[in-house]
């Protein structure tokens, strides 16, 4: 009791005040109760499916059964088969996702910087620019990607212009290329990169930038030494929110790519829905998840933003 009261209310109140201490304890467990809906939701829609996924990935075909008939087993060779057949698509997914993440960072950071820092003190302008960033979400993901298909099509003005300035050979095309897929990925996940960086920069104290200038750092140095490090939490969130969904994405590669740009999401989709090979689809999903987990934890550790978060 005394310990609880000391923790709950500090030494000032002392052990002689049990009623407030009890209240404090109730308040604390009450806070944990708030977790309940989220936990229940995640258990139902995340933990159970993941367990089911793990089990399915080890299933074996029913001997003499129809296509799509499997039974519980411990068939770990599913992983070997799946990986040895589809490692190029796996690797390509990560390469595309990485490229799109870097591109989104290069486009999104300056955008976030202008909105958060340059437009500081002009709330209307800031609001308008933020709406523009979010506006693409008002239409469907699929529709927007199909629009890109048109923009990059052989007869589009973009291709004509690129051919005219000889950035593209006369018979060169953009649609159905890896370039188009990366463009689509970059575009679709750009707001996920921009908004967290904006939030970080918006919180940045402008006086710290002044302090940088006062301490002999010119504008580029102040940016590198003060602004960028202080916006790292936003950069880390933004890259994670872009890289993770982009690695598993299959819409962009289906709509904007061809059979040489297949990404792992596409493979999982077709193994599952077209060939009814549930165990190999599950095995690929598990590998994708594990790989992302490893990459992300290595990244977060390296970026050293724990103390800023």
């Amino acid at each position, binding site marked *: 009791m005394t310990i609880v009261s000391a923790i709950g209310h500090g030494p000032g109140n002392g052990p002689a005040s049990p009623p407030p201490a009890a209240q404090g304890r109730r308040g604390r467990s009450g806070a944990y109760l708030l977790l309940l809906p989220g936990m229940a939701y995640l258990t139902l829609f995340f933990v159970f499916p993941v367990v089911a996924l793990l089990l399915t990935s080890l299933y074996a075909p029913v001997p003499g059964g129809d296509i799509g008939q499997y039974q519980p087993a411990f068939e770990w060779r599913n992983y070997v088969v799946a990986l040895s057949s589809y490692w190029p698509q796996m690797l390509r997914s990560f390469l595309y996702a990485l490229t799109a993440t870097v591109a989104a960072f290069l486009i999104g950071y300056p955008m976030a910087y202008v909105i958060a820092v340059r437009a500081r003190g002009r709330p209307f302008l800031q609001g308008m620019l933020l709406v523009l960033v979010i506006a693409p979400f008002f239409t469907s993901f699929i529709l927007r990607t199909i629009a890109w298909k048109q923009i990059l099509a052989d007869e589009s003005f973009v291709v004509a212009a690129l051919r005219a300035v000889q950035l593209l050979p006369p018979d060169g095309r953009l649609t159905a290329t890896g370039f188009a897929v990366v463009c689509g990925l970059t575009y679709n996940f750009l707001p996920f990169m921009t908004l967290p960086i904006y939030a970080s920069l918006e919180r940045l104290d402008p*006086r710290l930038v002044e*302090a940088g200038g*006062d*301490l*002999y*750092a*010119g504008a580029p140095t102040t940016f590198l030494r003060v602004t960028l490090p*202080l916006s790292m939490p936003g950069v880390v969130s933004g890259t994670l929110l872009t890289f993770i969904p982009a690695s598993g994405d299959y819409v962009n590669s289906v709509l904007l790519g061809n059979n040489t740009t297949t990404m792992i999401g596409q493979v999982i989709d077709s193994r599952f829905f077209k060939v009814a090979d549930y165990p190999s689809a599950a095995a690929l999903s598990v590998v994708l998840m594990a790989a992302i987990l490893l990459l992300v934890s290595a990244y977060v550790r390296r970026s050293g933003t724990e103390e*800023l978060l």
Partner: protein
Amino acid sequence: MSLSASTRAVPSGSPDGETSSGADLTLERITKDFGSFVAVDDLSLTVPSGSFFALLGPSGCGKTTTLRMVAGLERPSSGRILIGGQDVTSTRAHQRPVNTVFQSYALFPHLTVIENVAFGLRRTRAANPLGRAGDALDLVELRHLADRRPSQLSGGQQQRVALARAMVNNPAVLLLDEPLGALDLKLRRQMQVELKRIQTEVGLTFVHVTHDQEEAMTMADTVAVMNAGRIEQLGAPADLYELPRTAFVANFLGQSNLLGGTVVETVDGIMGVDVAGRRIRVPVDRAVSTSGDVLVGVRPEKLRLVREGEEPAPGTNWVGPGAVTDVSFSGVSTQYQVMVPGLGTLSVFSQNVAGRGEVRLGEQVRLACDVDFTFGLDGAEDATSGAVDLDDPGA
């Protein structure tokens, strides 16, 4: 505690080779307007090398804008800024041999204390930045916290880190923007002494902006009282206090009793002023205006209470009698408010010296003052200008 030789080395960012004792700072006819609002109005001043200079004024008087223009964080609309004789008006903040202790300290939260202090040294590629930063932390007695983050320090410690971070660069001019404003009263008094000690020790030119008149008077060699973008009066603290030249200075720097009157004669360098029917004498050399309407001023601690049955000393100025309307005892002294018919309420500080009987509320007293302690101001001035509104301690 003394600074090591390496700490005194001049940063390569300084334009002239030798700035170790600071450099003169000169502002020539500086004006800064933000649209139609004139923050600083045709201001000129010179801060001699190695001095502790305070810009004192209420909030919004333009003192911080002036400081920011010296730092290069704000560009003057017109006028010139010279540091050590060099025109730096068109240079940017990072090009000036000037460092600032910001009001909010503006320490970099992502860097340790020692890296904060070494920041400027690293930018100027000075030799041994960490060693010198450590020496600077010694000076503010915070070496043991070198590896902490600013967020792990108390306000007073952050303030000292900010000071070390600015000072370690050995700037020609060190700017302090209300550096003690966020500290509690006791810590503030302590830091005032500390700052003064450090300034004496390193001999840098300090320009200190504050709205706290006591702070300015305690620390600075020279105080410039600013009001509405202009300097009202500039001088040593004691000179400003004893002989204010405007009603604003008389009221903002300490308290004053200002009484309206008319000069009726001048004899032997003493002018006689008619104040509500009584003749008050003011030395001509202590008066801004020597004819017509004037304001006669006297500091509350210069007034003596003359009780019934006592007589004012011969040759002194006196007014009254009036009724004591308020008595507030504060230990070392007692403050009385005396309502004198025709003059209004006058304020009197009386030292609690043994042997004086207590003056009670409602008692009829006269108020006496030596002729040499009175001063004369322009009669056209508002007698309440610069007076501290008791409801607003921040003013």
